[in-house]
């Protein structure tokens, strides 16, 4: 081994590090999107017998469905694209001499390759025309990923009591720490609504039946949308612990703040899903009202159930895995209650979640 490397070897080494700093994190984030879209694809294409061309055809000829689908993909994929476009993970590398064209080519290739589910849907569904759609949407993704919102001067918060302050702090944490997860979640919420709407439409369901099936579909598809956000809420709960303890903030106040933050996200995601379902389904307003009411109550129940999951696992070293499994269990419980008991199941699910929350074991950090 020589002390000096050749320029070619040095460039290769630079590119290797750049790939690990930019492409690999983007790939990890895209993998989560792939898992989410796989769940949705299973719901849309599995039981209803729909094919890719049915969906892309609907999207091309029905402005509402086309718009919902495109917005969904933009929301879901922009956070991943941001990692490639801004390449902030490679900021230090840019201070070293290295290739200039190769990283741009690699990032562009990754920008297309990491959209695999979207590319596959359009190429299988529409062939060359589909490729054109992918190109147009990719340009929009590029523009959105490059945009940086202006920084505004923060107002002095006028919090009147600690409960209000803690809830506001959770909301700020969501805005500042979970931006990407929220955008991805919004995209998956649209997808959840599209899936629920298509399910209702293809099976010609109405009224309570449509509400039970639609709310179940939304509850399942929203699981990958909420996991990233839940972990941010838990991190906020943990990092504010010493501050809250030294300020004399009660555990109940802290739990209320956690439930509030989760409920806010769940309700917002559900409202987006209901709006998307309304766009794709031909159902009457009564059916949509049933679907909306049922889904919103299920969202509240899920918020309490997920809060229980987080608080019970707050000191666990396997918190991420427990959060994922717990969220799936909560969604499964909602589906089970709705499927077994119909409208009574809504109440049963909320009551079970509330009971689970109120019986959360008290964890005292750093107990001697």
């Amino acid at each position: 081994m020589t002390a000096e490397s050749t320029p070619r070897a040095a460039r290769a080494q630079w590119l290797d590090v750049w790939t690990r700093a930019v492409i690999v994190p983007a790939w990890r984030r895209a993998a989560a999107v792939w898992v989410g879209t796989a769940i949705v694809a299973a719901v849309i294409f599995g039981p209803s017998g729909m094919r890719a061309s049915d969906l892309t055809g609907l999207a091309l000829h029905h402005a509402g469905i086309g718009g919902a689908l495109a917005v969904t993909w933009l929301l879901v994929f922009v956070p991943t694209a941001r990692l490639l476009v801004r390449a902030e993970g490679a900021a230090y590398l840019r201070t070293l001499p290295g290739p200039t064209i190769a990283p741009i080519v690699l990032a562009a290739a990754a920008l297309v390759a990491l959209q695999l589910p979207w590319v596959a849907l359009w190429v299988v569904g529409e062939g060359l025309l589909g490729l054109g759609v992918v190109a147009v949407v990719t340009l929009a993704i590029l523009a959105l990923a490059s945009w940086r919102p202006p920084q505004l001067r923060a107002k002095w918060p006028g919090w009147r009591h600690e409960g209000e302050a803690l809830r506001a702090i959770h909301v700020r944490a969501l805005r500042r720490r979970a931006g990407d997860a929220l955008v991805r979640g919004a995209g998956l919420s649209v997808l959840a609504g599209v899936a629920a709407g298509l399910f209702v439409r293809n099976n010609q369901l109405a009224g309570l039946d449509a509400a039970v099936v639609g709310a179940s579909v939304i509850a399942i598809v929203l699981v990958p949308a909420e996991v990233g956000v839940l972990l941010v809420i838990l991190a906020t709960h943990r990092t504010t612990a010493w501050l809250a303890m030294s300020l004399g903030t009660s555990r109940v106040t802290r739990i209320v703040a956690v439930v509030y933050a989760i409920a806010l996200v769940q309700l917002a995601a559900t409202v987006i899903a209901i709006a998307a379902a309304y766009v794709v389904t031909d159902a009457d307003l009564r059916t949509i009202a049933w679907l909306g009411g049922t889904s919103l109550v299920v969202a509240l129940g899920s918020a309490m159930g997920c809060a229980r999951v987080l608080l019970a696992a707050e000191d666990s070293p396997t918190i991420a895995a427990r959060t994922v499994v717990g969220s799936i269990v909560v969604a499964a419980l909602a589906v089970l209650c709705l499927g077994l008991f119909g409208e009574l199941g809504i109440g049963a699910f909320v009551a079970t979640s509330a009971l689970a929350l109120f019986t959360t074991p008290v964890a005292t950090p750093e107990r001697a």
Partner: protein
Amino acid sequence: MSMLAIERLSVRRGGRTVIDNIALSVEPGEILGVVGKNGCGKTTLLACVAGVLTPRDGRVIIAGASVWGARGERQRARRALGYVPEGADPPGFLLGNELWSLCAAARGATPPSQALRDALGLDELRDTALERMSLGQRRRACLGAAFVGPPKLLVLDEPDNGLDARRLDAIVGLLKAHAAEGGATILASHDAALLDQLGARIHAMRDPSPTIRSDD
């Protein structure tokens, strides 16, 4: 009545007794400096006083209320104290003014006064996220939060760490003014000159092995 009374306090961490049967008190208007080698339990003692660590045994009484007592008493005790931990590490996403507002809301007080903001240079940290501040700036932000109220007892873990000479003078002035108004302070520091300047009574902690026992 003592502003702070620690009775037979014992703390175990990681299966090891870190503090064993300590008793001490701080009177109104007094500044108590806790000194000792690294790892002798200064930070553990202050975290226990601030209600962040649960003791195995003993009591911590602040202004007549127990830090680990019944709910109402516990709240009274904690609202009477302002704490700056060694790491000065509140959630990093919070802006300076949000940290001070949280403390003000919890203590039912107003945000930091102009005099406090001038002394600690808080205005320049108002719109900055804590994670973007240097250690000294973060410490100033945390000191600002601790002084909001102001509380009867200040619990400061190495408050001088990372501060420049100008801010150090400001801290000395603020702590002396707090003491003159009847407030009490317990602080850990390795800086003998600072403790001297403050006129602090010294409490020396012994080595942790096999156990720590207070001189008091």
